[in-house]
C-alpha cells in the first residue's frame, strides 16, 4: 500500500518534472529559421553543387576518373599543332579542346573526390543548393563553351590529322603484331577491358581503329591463338570489370585474361562459342591498369585470316592483349570492326561497341547506344546496337 502510494507519487512527480521542462521551452526562444525568408550561412567549404571553371580546364580527365559514380563526362579533341589554346590561370598550357564537359548532378553523390586531383583547381563545389528541378535533364550541367559548329570544326581537323597518323601507325602496328605474335610469353598485365574504354578518338572513323594509340591490337587473322585458343579462365580475370559495372550482360564470355598467356591460354569461353573455326575475332583488347582503360578491341572487319588491321596493343606489347570480349553469340564469324578507344572514362563504356555487331555486346548493355552512333558514323545505327543487346 505504502509502496503503491510512493509509486504513484513518483509517477506524478516525474510527469510534473517533464511538464516543467516543456513549459520552460514553451516560453523559450525558437531555434529554427524561417527558411525562405532567412537562410543559414553555409561554411566556405560546404559541398552543394559542382562547378567547373571551363577556362582553366585542360581536359586531363582526372576528375572524371576519380568519380565513383561516373557523373562526369568529358570529351576532348586534340588541338592542331598550330593552334594555341592559351594557358590556365596557374600557367598550364592547354592542348585539348573540351568539346564536351557534362556533369550529371542527379547522379552526383557530393563526395568531393573529383576536386582533389584537378591540377588546375578548376572543378570545385559551390554553395548553391537550391537547384532542384522538375525535369531530370535539367540537372545535367554542361560546361563546355564551344559552339556545336566549333566542335564540328575542331573534330574534323583532328580527324584528318588522326587519320594520317593512323595510317602510319597501322602499318607499324601490323608489322609489330606479326612479330609479337610469336613472342608469346609476355604477360599481360591487364584486366580486360571491359568497361572502361571509350572510344574516344576513334570518332569517326570506322573501320579504322584509330585511336588510341597504343591500344589497339588486333589479332591478326590467325591470331595466334588468341582467339579461340585463348582460354583464359574466366575466373581469373580479376578484374573483371564487368561484373561490376556493367558488364555486358551477355558477356558471359568475358574472357578474362590476365594471367594467361595469350596464345597459349586456355580458352575463353566466349570466344569459343562464337567463333569456332573462324577465329573471328577476337580482337583483343587489352587493358591496362584499370582506370586507365584502354583497350580496344578492334579488329576491323576482318575476316579471319585476313585480318588486316591489327591494332596494337595494350601498353605496348603486342600480343599481349588478351581478352576480348566480344560477344560471341552475336557474331559469329563476322566481327566487324570495332574501333577502339580510349578515353577511359571509367565506367562509362560509352562508346565501345558500337557498331560492330559483334562487339561486345555486352558492354553495350550499359551503354546506351546513342553515343556510339554519334561517334561512328557510318556504322550501324544505334538501334541495332540495342537489339543486339537484347538478344
Amino acid at each position, binding site marked *: 500500500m505504502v509502496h503503491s502510494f510512493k*509509486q504513484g507519487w*513518483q*509517477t506524478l512527480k*516525474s*510527469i510534473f*518534472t*517533464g511538464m516543467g*521542462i*516543456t513549459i520552460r*521551452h514553451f516560453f523559450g526562444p525558437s*531555434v529554427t529559421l524561417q527558411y525562405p525568408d532567412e537562410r543559414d550561412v*553555409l*561554411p566556405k*567549404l*560546404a*559541398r552543394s553543387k559542382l562547378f567547373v571553371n571551363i577556362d582553366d580546364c585542360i581536359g586531363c580527365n582526372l576528375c572524371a*576518373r*576519380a568519380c*565513383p559514380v561516373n557523373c562526369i563526362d568529358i570529351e576532348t579533341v586534340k588541338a592542331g599543332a598550330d593552334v594555341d589554346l592559351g594557358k590556365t590561370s596557374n600557367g598550364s598550357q592547354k592542348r585539348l579542346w573540351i568539346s564536351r564537359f557534362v556533369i550529371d548532378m542527379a547522379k552526383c*553523390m*557530393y*563526395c*568531393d*573526390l573529383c576536386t*582533389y586531383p584537378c591540377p588546375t583547381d578548376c572543378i570545385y*563545389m559551390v554553395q548553391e543548393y537550391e537547384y532542384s528541378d522538375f525535369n531530370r535533364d535539367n540537372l545535367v550541367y554542361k560546361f563546355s563553351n564551344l559552339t556545336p559548329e566549333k566542335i564540328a570544326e575542331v573534330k574534323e581537323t583532328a580527324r584528318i590529322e588522326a587519320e594520317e597518323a593512323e595510317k602510319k601507325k597501322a602499318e607499324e602496328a601490323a608489322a609489330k603484331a606479326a612479330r609479337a605474335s610469336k613472342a608469346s610469353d609476355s604477360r599481360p598485365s591487364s*584486366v580486360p577491358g571491359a568497361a572502361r574504354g571509350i572510344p574516344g578518338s576513334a570518332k569517326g572513323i570506322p573501320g579504322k581503329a584509330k585511336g588510341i594509340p597504343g591500344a589497339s591490337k588486333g589479332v591478326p587473322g590467325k591470331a595466334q591463338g588468341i582467339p579461340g585458343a585463348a582460354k583464359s579462365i574466366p575466373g581469373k580475370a*580479376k*578484374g573483371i*570489370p564487368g*561484373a*561490376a*559495372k556493367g558488364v555486358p550482360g551477355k558477356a558471359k564470355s568475358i574472357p578474362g585474361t590476365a594471367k594467361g598467356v595469350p596464345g597459349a591460354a586456355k580458352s575463353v569461353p566466349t570466344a569459343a562459342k562464337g567463333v569456332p573455326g573462324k577465329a573471328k575475332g577476337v580482337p583483343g583488347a587489352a587493358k591496362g*591498369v*584499370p*582506370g586507365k582503360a584502354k583497350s580496344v578491341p578492334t579488329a576491323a572487319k576482318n575476316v579471319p585470316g585476313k585480318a588486316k588491321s591489327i591494332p596494337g596493343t595494350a601498353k605496348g606489347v603486342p600480343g599481349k592483349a588478351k581478352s576480348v570480349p566480344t560477344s560471341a553469340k552475336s557474331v559469329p564469324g563476322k566481327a566487324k570492326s570495332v574501333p577502339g578507344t580510349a578515353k577511359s572514362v*571509367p*565506367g562509362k563504356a560509352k562508346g565501345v561497341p558500337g557498331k560492330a555487331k559483334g562487339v561486345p555486346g555486352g558492354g553495350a548493355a550499359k551503354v546506351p547506344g546513342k553515343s556510339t552512333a554519334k561517334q561512328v558514323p557510318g556504322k550501324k545505327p544505334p538501334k541495332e546496337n540495342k537489339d543486339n543487346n537484347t538478344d
Partner: protein
Amino acid sequence: MIEIVQKGKSRPEMVINMGPQHPSTHGVLRLEVTLDGELVTHVRPHIGYLHRCFEKYGESVGDYGMVTPFTDRMDYVSAMNQEHGYVIAMERLLDIEVPERVEYIRVIMAELQRIASHLLAVGTFGLDLGAFTPFLYVFTEREKILDIFEKSSGARLLYNYMCIGGLMRDVDDDFKKDTEEFVRTFRPKITELQNLLTYNSIFIKRTAHIGVLPPKVALNYAASGPVLRGSGVKWDLRKNNPYSIYDRFDFDIPVGEGEVGTLGDCWDRYIVRVLEMEESCKIIEQALEAMPDEGDVQQNVPKRVRTKPGEIYARTETPRGELGYYIISDTSAKPYRIKARAPSFVNLSLLPAISRGSLMSDLVAIVGSIDIVLGEVDR
C-alpha cells in the same frame, strides 16, 4: 474479412506485416509478426529493402579511395565512424603510419559522431514510445554537431572526410573553439533529457523488463555496442582492443545494471547510450587538450594505393557496435573482396529471440532499443 488463422486446436493467430513502411521500423524494415491478440508469438524480420550492393560496389569502383564515400552511406547516421573503420582497416593492411594530429582529429570526429548518433537513437526511441518532444530537443543538439562537421568537411551527413593515411582536408580554424563550446553546452542538455525522458515513469514502465537480453545470449548472437553493454557485458573495443589512439584516454564503459528493471532490458540499452554520450564528452575534452595544433594531415596519404595480396579483418566500435571490415586485396587497384560486418545487421538478428511473448507495443520499444539503421543492415 480479416483473415484470422486458426490452426488445429491452438488459439487463433493473426499475421500482420509491420513495415516496410511503418513509422517505428526506422526505415524499410519489414517485420512479419504473428499475433495472438496483442501478444507477439513470433517475429520474422525481412530485410533487403535498402540493399545497395555496397560490397559489389566496393569490388568494382576504381580504387580503394573511392570506397570511402560508399562506407558513409551504410550507416548514414554515423558516417564518420564508418569511414574511420574503413581507413583503419586499410591502414592496417598497408601498414601506414598516421600523423598524430590526424589521429586526434579522427578521434574527436568519431566521438562527436557517436554523440550525434546516440542522440538520434535516444530521440527516436522516445518517439517510438510516443514522446515527440525529446526527439526535437536532442535534434537541436545534433544539429550543432553537424554544423561542426560541415565547417570542416563540407557536408552534414555523408562526410567523406577521412582518407587512407590521413584526412581529406584539415579542420576548420574554429574547430577547437566550436567543439569546446559544444561540449560545454551539451552537458546540461543530458541532464534535461534525463529528467524529461529517462526517469519519466511512463517511459520506465514502457521499457523496464521489456525485451530482456541475457548476456549469454547476447554473446552467442555476437551482439555488440550498447546492445551488448546493456546486458551488463563490459565490452568496448575502444577499451578492450584499442585502435587508433583510444588507449590514451581516460573514460569508462557504461554498462546496464538493471537499475529500474531486469538486466538487459530496453531501458538498460537506452541508458547505456545516454551515459556513453557523457563518456564521449570526456574523450573529446582530453583529445582537444592533447591535440597538436600544427601538422599536415595529408603527409602520409599515398598518392596511389598499391596493394599486394593480403587480407585483413579490422574492427572498430561505432555507436551501434562492432563494425568490421574484411578486406581481401590483390595486386589490382580495387578490393578483391570487401565485406562489412555491420553491427545493426547482427543486432537485428536477435530480435526474434527477445521479442517473443511481448506485446505489440513492446515490439516497437524493442526495435527502437536495438537502434538499427537500415542502411547498415542491408548495406
